């Protein structure tokens, strides 16, 4: 197959394993493109893409913008902080106004879970979810899977532990769906207060002891504590979290094998990861960032590729 089964990338849950494989294979081609002396291809030169960010983002927005520019698309950026959203305009009105300026695709981040799904039913454009609240962050999961595949050759059969704030993490949910579609075993690990009650129903292992999780896995994907989404206290203090769930070199040295450390960023150094781990040869955090551009190029290219 050379075409995705969907017009939008709203989440990993509703796309097929073939879709995921096609995106990863195409991303490998784009990874080669972005390492050329001239990193640009003309594929999307007749496409205009709006990056609509209702939530803060550095990495994802830059990564999407770079991916779009490397594909030769025209790009408009929008962030809610300096827009008419503050004057009470609805989401559909805001987006339809942008689309009336002949925009073909919308990359959206929003704090409400399901916002891109709602948008995909109400506007005529390809929608890419760049993170919707605590729900999904599909391109992050795809770039994580791509990074694992690049490191190990295959994702199937690998053991991946997702460690940290699972409750508030869209990265965790998308990663679980993506890794399972590709045949990996997934474990989640964190304080019991930061694990969703339904998590076992997704077919993942649950572990409360970080040492056991690290001993079990081939890859540890370490997540940030999302203080901005926490209205109540889920653990006594960051210091205590770091003491029980922080990953440092001493902890990794105690394992009888080498594991790969991933982090979707931004890292809270000294909380979930110590600097000696984040900057070590075990960590592929910066490779993840580079792979993010290639994966997003693949997603945009494949979504735009269908004949209109």
């Amino acid at each position: 197959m050379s075409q995705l089964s969907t017009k939008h990338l709203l989440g990993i849950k509703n796309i097929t394993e073939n879709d995921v494989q096609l995106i990863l294979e195409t991303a490998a081609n784009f990874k080669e493109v972005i390492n050329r002396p001239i990193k640009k291809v003309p594929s999307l030169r007749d496409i205009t893409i709006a990056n609509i960010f209702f939530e803060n983002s550095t990495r994802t927005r830059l990564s999407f913008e770079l991916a779009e520019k490397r594909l030769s698309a025209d790009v408009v950026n929008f962030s809610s902080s300096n827009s008419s959203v503050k004057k009470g305009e609805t989401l559909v009105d805001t987006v339809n106004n942008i689309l009336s300026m002949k925009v073909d695709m919308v990359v959206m981040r929003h704090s409400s879970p399901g916002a891109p799904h709602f948008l995909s039913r109400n506007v005529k454009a390809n929608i890419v979810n760049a993170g919707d609240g605590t729900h999904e962050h599909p391109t992050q999961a795809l770039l994580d899977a791509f990074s694992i595949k690049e490191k190990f050759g295959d994702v199937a059969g690998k053991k991946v532990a997702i460690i940290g704030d699972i409750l508030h993490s869209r990265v965790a949910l998308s990663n679980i769906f993506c890794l399972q579609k590709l045949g990996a075993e997934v474990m989640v690990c964190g304080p019991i207060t930061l694990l969703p009650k339904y998590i076992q129903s997704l077919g993942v292992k649950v572990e409360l002891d970080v040492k056991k999780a690290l001993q079990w896995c081939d890859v540890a994907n370490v997540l940030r504590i999302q203080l901005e989404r926490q209205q109540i206290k889920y653990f006594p203090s960051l210091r205590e979290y770091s003491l029980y769930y922080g990953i440092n070199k001493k902890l990794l040295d105690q394992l009888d094998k080498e594991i790969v450390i991933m982090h979707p960023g931004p890292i809270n150094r000294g909380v979930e990861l110590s600097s000696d781990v984040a900057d070590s040869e075990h960590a592929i955090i910066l490779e993840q960032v580079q792979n993010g551009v290639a994966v997003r190029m693949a997603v945009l290219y494949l979504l735009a590729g269908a004949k209109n």
Partner: protein
Amino acid sequence: MQKRLVLDEGQIAITLRRFCHQLIENHDDFENTVLLGLQPRGTLLVDKIVALLQEISGVKVPSGYLDATFHRDDFRRRDLPLKANETKIDFLVEGKKVILVDDVLYKGRSVRAAMDAMIAFGRPQKVELMVLVDRKLTRDYPIMPDYFGVRINTLTSQYVIVEWKEQGHEKDAIWITEKDKS
């Protein structure tokens, strides 16, 4: 399905040898020359030419594979998008004499896209085109080969198929067939 043989195994072998001698004539010691096989069907051919050149002249000419999928002009205009293939070029073409190698030259659109893709690796001094089969009078772009194995008249209702033993066929052969109308 009707099939007409264009070149058999012996004729293809002679053609490949002729290509090598023409290249030696034009490129001397290949000091500044590179070969690029166009994905997907020019890659096997370029490997064969490189091996044969080494056998004949003792020189291993640098070569690579070039995929032009992202540079094609029919993106968003096809029913199904084309799947990209690997580009494998571990040198720059800046200032080099580049020989693009493909199996069949038809409308010239793939070669145009390939030249566009090639520029991402530098500005070549000169570019030449080598094809096994030149389907004449079918071009959409003003592109002509510098080296061709055989030049044939075909209809747009026909395919030219190049078969290689390395791809599981009994013998190397080039055929003309009618497109399946079903």
